[in-house]
């Protein structure tokens, strides 16, 4: 609770400020849209949080989003696969990607940054080749399939809780239990803090690191699937661009330390919400121009990290 206090306060402050400054912010449509975006990006954030907790990084998330986001409609529309088969394929491929990353990082001792940087280029390039750089989508077909990304559980006539957000809550709950209640979660945090001590305590640290990359890639794939079901159009050259950075930023805002060993799932979800709220604020508040988005997000992130570090050092000195 202590760890997420700061980010929770940030969320509330930005929320209230936007409610006063922005037009139509509190409207049902806008609120639903906010939840939907949080749901989509939050899945990526939770995924990368697992990797960050081990002290690693995954830069390939956006490209995995692209691969799945373009690959699934390509399989369904161009190769006449059934949606179920295409989804299975996405699951298998993303699992293999995670295993591959984990293998290179633990067994060949390559640096996570380098491995996933190469992956970032490779998967996007492969997707562009596969789709011949053509935009992919379902057109007007497969409405039932697409409803996973577009529908909402109605609350009022204008406001509903979008499916992607519901899916995020389910995934977050499972991730929370995994991290806080199981021995594997304990092992992950332990090895993120001190891999050698964890290994000497009889923990198969390599296996846990590999697992974290598999979780990350599979959640990126789930995110990619929901993004394409939601948007129904994916351009291989830019679909998912920079999404890994949004995910990493949300995880850091939510209290993950890139040194490893630290992070909470609730924090990451709130961190994602803060990121989406900022974007929303920039859209709705007149005097904030949309080209200022990166500037504002960057400054907020930096301030958050500085505040966090100062508080930590103060706590340490007091003891």
């Amino acid at each position, binding site marked *: 609770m202590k760890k997420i206090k700061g980010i929770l306060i940030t969320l509330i402050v930005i929320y209230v400020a936007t409610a006063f400054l922005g037009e139509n912010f509190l409207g049902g449509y806008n609120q639903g849209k906010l939840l939907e975006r949080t749901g989509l990006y939050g899945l990526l954030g939770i995924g990368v949080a697992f990797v960050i907790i081990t002290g690693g990084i995954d830069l390939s998330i956006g490209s995995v989003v692209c691969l799945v986001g373009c690959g699934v409609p390509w399989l369904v529309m161009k190769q006449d696969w059934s949606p179920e088969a295409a989804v299975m394929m996405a699951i298998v491929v993303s699992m293999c990607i995670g295993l591959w990353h984990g293998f290179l990082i633990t067994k060949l001792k390559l640096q996570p940054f380098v491995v996933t940087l190469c992956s970032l280029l490779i998967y996007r390039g492969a997707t562009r080749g596969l789709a011949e750089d053509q935009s992919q989508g379902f057109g007007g077909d497969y409405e039932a399939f697409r409803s996973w990304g577009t529908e909402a559980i109605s609350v009022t006539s204008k406001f509903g809780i979008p499916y992607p957000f519901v899916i995020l809550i389910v995934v977050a709950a499972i991730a929370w239990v995994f991290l806080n*209640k*199981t*021995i*594997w979660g*304990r*092992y992950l*945090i*332990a090895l993120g*803090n*001190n891999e*050698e*001590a*964890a*290994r*000497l*305590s*009889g*923990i*198969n640290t390599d296996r846990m690191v590999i697992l974290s990359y598999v979780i990350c890639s599979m959640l990126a794939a789930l995110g990619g699937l929901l993004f394409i079901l939601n948007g129904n159009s994916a351009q291989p050259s830019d679909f998912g661009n920079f999404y890994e950075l949004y995910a990493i930023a949300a995880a850091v805002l939510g209290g993950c330390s890139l040194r490893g*060993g*630290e992070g909470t799932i609730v924090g990451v979800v709130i961190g994602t919400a803060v990121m989406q709220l900022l974007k929303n604020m920039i859209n709705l508040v007149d005097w904030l121009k949309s080209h200022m988005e990166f500037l504002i997000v960057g400054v907020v992130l930096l301030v958050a990290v500085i505040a966090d570090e100062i508080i930590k050092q103060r706590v*340490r000195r007091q*003891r």
Partner: protein
Amino acid sequence: MEEPFLEVRKIKKLFPGVVALSGVDLWVNAGEVVALIGENGAGKSTLMKILAGVQPADEGELLVDGKVVRFAHVQDAQKAGIALIHQELNLADNLTVAANMFLGREPGKFGWIDQGAIGREAKRVLEVVGLEVSPDTLLSELTLGKQQLVEIAKALSTEAKVIIMDEPTSSLSMSESERLFDVIRELRESGVSVIYISHRLGEVKELADRVVVFRDGENAGMLERDEVDHDAMVRMMVGRDVSQFYQRTEHELGEVALSVRGLRTEEHPSNELGFEVRAGEVVGVAGLVGAGRSEMLSALFGARPALSGEVSVGGREGLPRSPREALERGLALVPEDRKGQGIILDMAVKENMSLASLRHAARGPFVNVSKEEELVAEMTAALSVKTPGSWQLLRFLSGGNQQKIVLAKWLALKPKVLLLDEPTRGIDIGAKEEIYLLMERFASEGMAVLFVSSEMEEIMGMADRTLVMHEGRITGELARENFSEESIMELATGGNVNEAE
């Protein structure tokens, strides 16, 4: 009476959870060799770091030549004429001797290094310390002993008036040590003061003009040249007679618990190690730094798997390939580098204690919280761990309590063989005694205990039997009745003493 060149008055230093120094005094006259001795954790290294400007004191005064000084950086101390030679050498392997000596203060202009000046000056100083190598030699081509002399040359080239040496002989051979002593004597002649930190009381006796003893961050006493003798030093360091400090009881030895044959480690692939340890036996492993003792324990525990060898634990054959395999066979390792390998500083007492045995305190994949708490309460009581609560992060506990938690982590698994690597390094004297009592208790309960130690007292006090290693080989084995500092040192430096003599 002459004014001391360097004086330390009532220096205090606190670290989280530990009082490292609680008001110590020390002075050094020009051209004097002062030996500073004390057990690990007595505060010697902390004081030396303060003197060298590595870290500031919390309270107290530092006087150089009668004037109060404050060192904010290492450079300040260097300018005042104080140089520290760390126990672990601070040299860059990939640079030349000359480049190392002038690292960070290269003569020259606008970032352009005056190589000629470096070479000339390096050559001059190397002659002073009697090291006959070219200044252009790569450091990695020198033996540890010669590298040590390079460090001293480096200190001299800063025009140091006081050179602090922190256990300089811990990795030197006998002849290299002798050479070092000669250099120290020459330095004394030329008016340079030396603060000499060592655990080797024999050396201290040979070299020191005066001996200052620290204990638990306080001055425990001082001996003038003519008062220096072994027993007096030990009494001051330990605070009582050693015979009470190491309590061993006679008990029956059981079956062979650990049997090792033909063990080859990565570091010394041409040497085969073999020995046995019986249940209830405490076996020490003595030797100099770099003798391959830690590597042997790492190999036994599967931390850095051995190249080959036969290991049998409690009758079960097989060479452990990973720590996991080792602990399944009943081995446990308390590693040398506690903070790096033994504990997780930013996790709680509870989580550290249960880390190795969590599998057994689990319901399916879920941590069984009540069982975990039970185990932690039991271990905290059994090892009398002092902590405000099981939620406390290890960062805030003393070294002794951290070490007990490493032991607790293994005890829950009831190991047959306990391997300990420098079990009392960096912990205070009270905790040290507790660790010894625990080792004795584990042995009397039938555990086989194999411990590596660089402290002669500890080996002679605790071991039933001692293996001595030198350059990757076991050069001898001594039974308790044959223990003597001389016999162990001779084996540790490669001399030959026949077994069971």
